[in-house]
């Protein structure tokens, strides 16, 4: 060993850090891997003891997730024409026939509409509010900001009953609009605070230059501030989406039919045809995908976003 550098840690430290990171990754990823794997098991494999690590993959969980099925007698089953599709075959093997589609598809679509809708609204309103707090002399700005933050100082579910009554009065119960507004109300304080931090970091000189270059304040905001706040907007959007996407308590309380999202729906699978864990796991796996894709899509921004406090000059 000859050279020594202050900025480059010794190889041994790097090795230890590597081991720690890999260990942590295994611990956090294992449940996820298990859920994805369970989705491809048969119900018997899913509950076998000791647990099966190697198993013959099956799409039964996914078929069960998307269908409702009825058990019919062996004779009636034998009298039916041969199954026309692979998923019908899977169901027949269990002595059942497909009665119709399940409601998972529409619940999933509800989650997409409500999750992305409220994320868009939170980030849109949050950006405008954060810009105003950052750039203009707002009367009582500090008190207002504290008030905005204080809405997060208790768990939102603590006000569930007033909200429930309010929604009933306003006809917002079990509507997409109602859920979008509710999640936006919860997320907006986070959005304002996060985005204000990002916008504060953008020097005013850029906007001033744009004002002199012949642009109005709104155009300067749109052409100069927004592109530079992209990092903050992306990471705020991810945080908002994760909350709205995973929210369970309000969804159970305020939705039942038209606007029910996926989280309250997935547990109901358990009650339908016995404890169908592969179907639950399949539902959870598919449910993970949109947030995962969204996050990967914005990952470059997110990494800069959540470390902004640490790397700032």
């Amino acid at each position, binding site marked *: 060993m000859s050279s020594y550098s202050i900025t480059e840690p010794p190889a041994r430290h790097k090795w230890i850090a590597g081991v720690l990171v890999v260990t942590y990754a295994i611990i956090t990823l294992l449940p996820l891997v298990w859920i994805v794997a369970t989705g491809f098991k048969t119900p018997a494999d899913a509950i076998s003891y000791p647990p099966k690590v190697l198993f013959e993959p099956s799409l039964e969980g996914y078929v069960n997730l998307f269908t409702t099925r009825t058990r019919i007698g062996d004779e009636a089953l034998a009298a039916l024409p041969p199954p026309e599709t692979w998923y019908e075959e899977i169901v027949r093997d269990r002595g059942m026939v497909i009665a119709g589609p399940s409601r998972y598809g529409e619940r999933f679509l509800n989650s997409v509409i409500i999750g992305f809708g409220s994320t868009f609204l939170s980030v849109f309103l949050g950006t405008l509010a954060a810009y105003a707090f950052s750039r203009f002399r707002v009367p009582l700005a500090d008190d207002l900001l504290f008030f905005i933050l204080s809405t997060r100082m208790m768990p939102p579910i603590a006000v569930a009953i007033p909200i429930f009554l309010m929604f009933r009065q306003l006809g917002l119960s079990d509507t997409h609009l109602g859920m979008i507004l509710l999640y936006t109300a919860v997320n907006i304080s986070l959005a304002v605070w996060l985005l204000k931090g990002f916008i504060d970091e953008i020097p005013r000189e850029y906007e001033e230059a744009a004002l*002199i270059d012949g642009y109005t304040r709104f155009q300067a905001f749109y052409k100069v501030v927004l592109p530079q706040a992209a990092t903050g907007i992306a990471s705020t959007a991810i945080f908002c989406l994760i909350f709205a996407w995973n929210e369970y308590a309000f969804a159970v309380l305020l939705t039942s039919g038209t606007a029910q999202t996926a989280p309250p729906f997935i547990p109901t699978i358990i009650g339908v045809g016995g404890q169908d864990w592969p179907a639950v796991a399949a539902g959870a796996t598919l449910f993970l995908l949109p947030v995962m894709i969204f996050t990967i899509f914005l990952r470059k921004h997110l990494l800069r976003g959540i470390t902004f406090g640490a790397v700032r000059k």
Partner: protein
Amino acid sequence: MAEVQLTGVSKRFGRDIGVEGLTMTVGDGAFVVLLGPTGAGKTTTLRLISGLEKADAGEIRIGGQPVTHLTPSQRDVAMVFQQYSLYPHLTVRENLAFPLRSPILKTPEDEIARKVAEIAEVLRIPHKLDNKATALSGGEMQRVSIGRALVRDPQVYLMDEPLSSLDAKLRSDLRIELKRIQADLGATLLYVTHDQIEAMTMATQIGVLDNGRLVQFGTPREIYENPVSLYVASRLGLPRINTLPADMFAGAPPGAATMGLRPEHIEQGAGKPSQITRVEHLGDQTRLHLTLDGHDIITLTDPHTPLKGGESIAIQPRDALYFDAAGARIA
């Protein structure tokens, strides 16, 4: 291009004075340099003219039109900031085209391409046009931000120490280039600098600010040779003007408290003997550091002088400036 008139313009920031009762006319096609130490109100003056700050009192006219209530974009001025002037998310080309694409100018694309190429040539950055603005060196950034002002044809150019972050060679090249462009365009230009050479060589007039007030306005020659106060006299001159008690040499007018003696206004070989403390050979000139009755004096001498520290030399003033106790010029 247009004339800029400020009449009794005042601006305070809380309790701090920005500018106070500023009255000044920047003639059409004039190159006016604002001088003054940090906090004297130079940048505030530019920001008031550009509309980035609103004056508390007074009136600003550009080309005869009152602009006090117009927004910056309506005033049609171009400004070069001291820092942070490039849009980091755009390329150099987009930065230069940005003002031309504004809703006020709406320049056709072929015209934009032509002007951008032309300016890039002048500022010697054509090979950098497609770089991200953040991928440039400090000097290149500053050149682009000057370029962003020059692509336009505004009523007035405002420049806040535009050359301060450049190296010496580039600074002197661009100084000449800027002066040439200004003269060619007949542009009205208001320029803030700390650099004496820039002030002396580029300005048609110099305005000296002291704590928000305009204390003298005149040609560089007037400011240098005929300052109204000790404050103005010490703004220009390198080495700085020597300040000595007025009675140190004979000939002080009555009431004089201080004598200002520019280094080149000290004759050697006659008068009072002084002690040489140090000799600085700068190549093109040699500075003599002297002490006389406990006062430090700096003067210039022949580059190949045989004088050494510790020796003694007789000196006497020529064309001394005299100031009263408050620093106002008497003679």
